[in-house]
C-alpha cells in the first residue's frame, strides 16, 4: 500500500515537471518562427521555467522525510500559467503530504503577481480540492513572499504565508532563512487542524551556487504546531515540535 502511495506521488511530481518541461521547450522553439516573419519580437515573447526550490532529505530520529517544493511557469511578461507543488514522503511509512496548485498569474504591480486557481491535495487521504487566491512577489527588504488563501470543497477557509530571503555571504555561498505559517478559520479534525494559527515553520539553508541553475545545500528545519492543532497532532501520534537536519539541492531549468 505505502509503496503504491509513494509511487503515485513520485509519478505526480514527474508528470508535473514533465508537462512544464515540454512547455519550456515550446517556448524556446516558438521564439524563432516569430522572427522569421518580419515582425521582430521586442516584447511579447513567451518563456517558461521549472524551479525546484527544495528537493531535500530531512533527518529526524525515527522517521526521515523526503520533501520537495517546486514551481513551474509558462507565459509572457504579464500573464503566466503557474504550477506549484510541495509535499513530503515519510519513512518509515506514515502520513505523507502532497499538493499541487494550478494558477493563472498576472502582474499587477512592479513587484507583484496576483494568482488565482485550484489546489488539489493528493495526500493526506481523502484527497481534497481548494480554490486559491494569492499574491506572490518581492516585499520591501528583498523578501520573496508567497501569500495564499484557500477555500476547500467543504467551505473551510485557510491561509498560508511563505517568505524567504537570500543573504549572500559571497557571490556563490548563500544563506536562505525561510518562514511559513498556516492559519485556519475553522476546525478540520480529519486534517488535525484547529481554528487559529496552525503551525509555524522556520528553515535555514546554506547553498552553494555552482551555477545559477544548480545549488546543493545543507540546513535545518524546525516546525511547530500551535494551540489546538498541536493537541490534535499529538493525539494522532505525531510530534507537534519537529527539528530536522537536512541536505538537498536547488535547481532550475
Amino acid at each position, binding site marked *: 500500500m505505502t509503496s503504491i502511495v509513494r509511487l503515485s506521488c513520485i509519478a505526480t511530481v514527474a508528470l508535473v515537471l514533465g508537462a512544464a518541461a515540454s512547455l519550456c521547450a515550446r*517556448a*524556446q522553439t516558438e*521564439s*524563432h518562427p516569430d*522572427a*522569421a*516573419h*518580419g*515582425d*521582430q*519580437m*521586442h*516584447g*511579447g*515573447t513567451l*518563456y517558461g*521555467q521549472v524551479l525546484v526550490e527544495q528537493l531535500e532529505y530531512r533527518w529526524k530520529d525515527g522517521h526521515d522525510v523526503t520533501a520537495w517544493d517546486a514551481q513551474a511557469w509558462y507565459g509572457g*511578461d*504579464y500573464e503566466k500559467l503557474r504550477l506549484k507543488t510541495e509535499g513530503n514522503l515519510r519513512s518509515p511509512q506514515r502520513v505523507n503530504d502532497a499538493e499541487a496548485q494550478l494558477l493563472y498569474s498576472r*502582474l*499587477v*504591480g*512592479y*513587484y507583484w503577481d496576483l494568482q488565482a486557481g485550484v489546489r488539489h491535495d493528493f495526500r493526506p487521504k481523502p484527497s481534497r480540492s481548494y480554490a486559491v487566491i494569492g499574491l506572490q512577489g*518581492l*516585499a*520591501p*527588504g*528583498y523578501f520573496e513572499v508567497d501569500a495564499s488563501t484557500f477555500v476547500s470543497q467543504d467551505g473551510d477557509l485557510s491561509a498560508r504565508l511563505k517568505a524567504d530571503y537570500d*543573504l*549572500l*555571504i*559571497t*557571490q556563490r555561498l548563500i544563506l536562505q532563512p525561510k518562514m511559513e505559517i498556516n492559519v485556519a478559520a475553522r476546525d478540520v479534525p480529519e486534517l488535525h487542524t484547529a481554528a487559529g494559527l496552525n503551525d509555524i515553520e522556520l528553515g535555514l539553508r546554506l547553498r552553494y551556487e555552482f551555477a*545559477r541553475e544548480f545549488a546543493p545545500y545543507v540546513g535545518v528545519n524546525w516546525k511547530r504546531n500551535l494551540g489546538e492543532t498541536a493537541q490534535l497532532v499529538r493525539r494522532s501520534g505525531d510530534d507537534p515540535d519537529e527539528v530536522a537536519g537536512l541536505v538537498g539541492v536547488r535547481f*532550475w531549468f
Partner: protein
Amino acid sequence: MSAKHIASAWVARLALATIVSAPTIAGAETYDLVLENKTVNITGKDRTATLINGQLPGPVLRFKEGENVTVHVTNRLKEETSIHWHGLLLPSEQDGVPGVSNGFRGILPGETYTYNFQIKQAGTYWYHSHSATQEQSGMYAPIIIEPKNREPFRYDRDYVVVLSDWTDENPDGIVRNLKLYPGYYNEHKRTLVNFFREAGEKGLGAALKDRKMWGDMRMDPTDIADVAGYTFLINGKSPADNFTALFKPGERVRLRFINSAAMSYFDVRIPSLKMTVVQADGNNVQPIPVDELRIAVAETYDVLVQPREDKAYSLLAESMDRTGFARGTLAPREGMVGEIPPHRPRPLLTMADMGMSFGPTGLDRGTPHPETDAPGHVAPMDMEGMDHGAPQASGATHTMPDGSTMAGMSHDAPASAGPTHTMPDGSTMTGMDHSAMGHGAMADPLANDTGAPPGAKVLSYRDLKALSSLYDAREPDRIIEVRLTGNMERFFWSMNGRMYNEAQPIVLRYGERVRFRFINETMMNHPMHLHGMWMLPRVGNGARDPIKHVVNIKPGSSLDVDIPADAEGNWAFHCHLLYHMEAGMMRKVTVVREAAAND
C-alpha cells in the same frame, strides 16, 4: 591660396598617408555583402557566429559623400536577415528594419536584396543586422564616408577601432536567463563580506542603514550591466590578440571609435596621451582635448592623437562594469605590447541614480490615442527618506542656466547613501550657479564619472559643439514626453510604460521641430537611437549643440533632445542595448506630411 588649392593639397596628403587596418572594399560604387554562419574561436572554444563576408567585424565600407551606392546583400543564413545603415540619412525604404522601414520585410534565406541610396553626409558610421539576435552574433561593421570638402583637421594615419563584446553564450539563452532571473549575470552583488568591509569603513550603523534603504527600495546598487561574461574586442581581436596600430613618433593618428557592442559601455583612454575629439556620431565638432571618454553603445567618436615617443601606448577601452578591457596597442613597430593597468573600482549606483518615477507628466506622447502605463512598468517610490518634492503634473524638470534640463527632484537622501553633489567634470560647469539648483542629490545628466584621477578631463556632451550647425537654434513646435520605463525584476523594458508590441507609433509632422523630453525612470543607462533623423541633445551650446544619432540617457536623469522631423516615413526608435530593445524598449516613429496627418 584659394580654397580649392587647399582642398587638393589636403586630399593629396590624405591619399598618401591613409592606412586602413581592416580589409576594405574600395572605389566601386557597387558593393557585395554575403551573410553566413561561420565558426569563430574568440575564447578558445569554437562557436558559430553570424558574419558579413566571413569577417568579424565585417568589411569596412568606404563611401564618398554624394556617391550613389548600390549594395547587394545575399542571405546565406537559415533565417531572415537585414542590414541597417546606422546613422545614415536615407529613404525609409532603404533603412533596413523589417516590419518598420517602409515596405521592407527583411531578406529571406537564399535571397539577394539590393539596397540603393545616395550618401548625403560624411564621417564614421557603421552597419549591422536589425533582425533577431544576429548583430550580437557578429553581424556589424564600419562605414567610412569621405567628405566632399577637406576635413577640418589633419592626420597622417587613419585607423578604425571597432569596440565590441563577444560571448560564447547563445543570445537567445541570454534573453531567457535574464527573463528568468534578471540578476543572472551580476557577479558583483552585495554580500556579507562587502558588508563587513563597509561597516569597517563607515561604521556599522551607516552600513546597516544603507542596506536597509536599498532593501526597502528593492533595488540593487550593483546593477551596472545586465549581461556579463563578455570578452571585449577591438576590430575582432581579443586583448590577448592585441590589435596593433602603427605610427611614427610625432605623427597625428586618427582613431575612429565605434561602439558595436551589444550591451557594453566603454571608458576609452590611452594613458599618457591626450585624445582630441574631432567628430561625434560622424559629425565634426570643435576639437576638444580629453584624457578619457565614455562611449555609449552605438555611438562613434573620432579622435586625433599625436604619440611623440618611440614606445608602445596602450589603447584601453574599459567596460563600464569593470569586468574587462578591450585592449589594443599604438606602437612604432609590430609586436610591441603596452601595459594594462589594473581595473578601476566598479561603480555603485547612488541615490542620485535612483529613478524619478513620477509617472506621466501630462505632456504630449506623440501617439494618436492616449496611452497609459501598463502595470508593472514603474517602480513604486515610497521609500522613506526620499522626498519627491515635485508633484507629478509639474513637469518634473528644471531648466538650468545653461539650458539643459535636470530632474526636479529634491531627494533629501540619508547621508549614508553617499550622494555627494560633485560634478565630475567640474571644469565644464563654468557659469553654473550650483546653489540655484537646490537639490541635495541629483544625477547630472551629462557628466561621466569614470573614476579618472582628479584633473583628468573626461568628455561630457557639454563639451561637444558642432563645428557647423546644420539646424538653427529654435524652440520646438511641441514637446513629446519619452519616459524610459520597465521592470528590472522581470526584465522587460519600455517607453511611457508600453513595450513595442503593445504601443502605438509616435507620429511626427514633416517639417516640425519636436523635442523629446527623456525622463529615465530606470536605474540603467539607455543609449537611445533614432533612425533617419538627427537628434540634437540640448546641452547648452545653442545652435552648436551636437548632432547625434545616439543619445545616452543616464539613470535617474532627464534630458531634452530636439529632433528636426525632416525625413518622411517609418523609422525605428529604440534603446541600442540589444537586450533592452529585444525586451520591448522600442517604438516606431512615423513622419507624415501635414495633409496625411489630418486624415
